[in-house]
């Protein structure tokens, strides 16, 4: 039987999502600034964040559009960056697959790096949670994250170019991702996946349109799965 109440799970989700505020605010502000500098108005910038709700893909699309890349290239590259969302979607199936179509559609919309990372970890640790408790947790992680994503996109768009370059906001993205990666390296299989991914991504960085990242992701997954298989079961 589940020993936790849905209410306590709700607050657990909010608590687990809250630290990402420190990341989401600079990240979305930065997007607003970058988009405005590329010539987007506040409404266009906000629509971007609401419809796409994926930082790396948004940055990719704006960067390519700014450099007069063909529309198709900007679109395909940004979607390639977001391909990991399909992988997240697949790995959430065992946990959220029994929810109604509407609930699954809503969960799909709110599937971002942070909600996915928190949810998969907690769902693994709490196999006795009901589907309702899992959905509660998932949406409560998104609660401190996603609204701020929209709000600070607008703030960034309004601040525009008045942010000094010395703030080095460019490195907010790598620092965020690196901070997320550290705790993920739990087993030799995870370390293998990460090392293969880094190696392939750097070797294939010359490939256009983020194709190197796609190959690196696939190679990393295969490396992780192979190491796990050789070590016999879930490592």
């Amino acid at each position, binding site marked *: 039987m589940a020993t936790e109440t849905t209410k306590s799970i709700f607050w657990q989700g909010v608590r687990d999502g809250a*630290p990402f505020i420190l*990341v989401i605010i600079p990240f979305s502000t930065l997007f607003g600034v970058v988009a405005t500098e590329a*010539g*987007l108005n506040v409404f266009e910038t906000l*629509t*971007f964040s609401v*419809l*796409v709700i994926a930082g790396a893909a948004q940055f990719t*699309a704006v960067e390519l559009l700014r450099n007069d890349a063909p*529309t198709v290239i900007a*679109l395909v590259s940004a*979607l390639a960056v*977001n391909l*990991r*969302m*399909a*992988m*997240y*979607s*697949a*790995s959430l*199936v065992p946990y959220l*697959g029994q929810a109604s179509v509407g609930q*699954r*559609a809503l969960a799909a*919309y709110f599937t971002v*790096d942070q909600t*996915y990372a928190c949810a998969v970890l907690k769902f693994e640790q709490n196999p006795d949670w009901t589907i309702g408790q899992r959905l509660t947790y998932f949406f409560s992680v998104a609660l401190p994250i996603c609204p701020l994503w929209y709000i600070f996109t607008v703030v960034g768009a309004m601040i525009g170019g008045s942010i000094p370059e010395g703030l*080095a906001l*460019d*490195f907010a*993205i*790598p*620092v965020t*991702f*690196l*901070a*997320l*990666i*550290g*705790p*993920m*390296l739990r087993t030799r299989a995870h370390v293998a*996946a*990460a090392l293969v*991914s*880094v190696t*392939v*991504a*750097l070797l294939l960085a010359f490939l256009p349109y983020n194709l*190197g*990242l796609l190959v*690196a992701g*696939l190679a*990393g*997954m295969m*490396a*992780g*799965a192979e190491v796990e298989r050789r070590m016999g079961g*879930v490592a």
Partner: protein
Amino acid sequence: MIDPVALWTVIILLGLGSFALRFVFIGLIGDKPLPDWILRHLRYTAVAVLPGLVAPLVVWPEATGGQLDAPRMAAAVVTLATGLWTRNVVLAICLGAGTLYGGLYLLG
């Protein structure tokens, strides 16, 4: 200046496409169990994609025109090491950002 038609095409199609990617498995497959070998690969998605995404950003930072940069490299090492040892994402970000600003102040 970005052409408004191109911009709105990308915003709308990227929004629809991103939702489709997020919905494809969880929405369409539902609770049918996935084969073991697929699940075994999926366990490593995040840890396979994020390092590949971040590595070029660390080695060739855009802000320095792609030149390897000591403060950014130090920040990356501190962030990753803190995350590894403490499993604390926020602490890793804080120490990483602290290292970056400290490094930029001392060297910049």
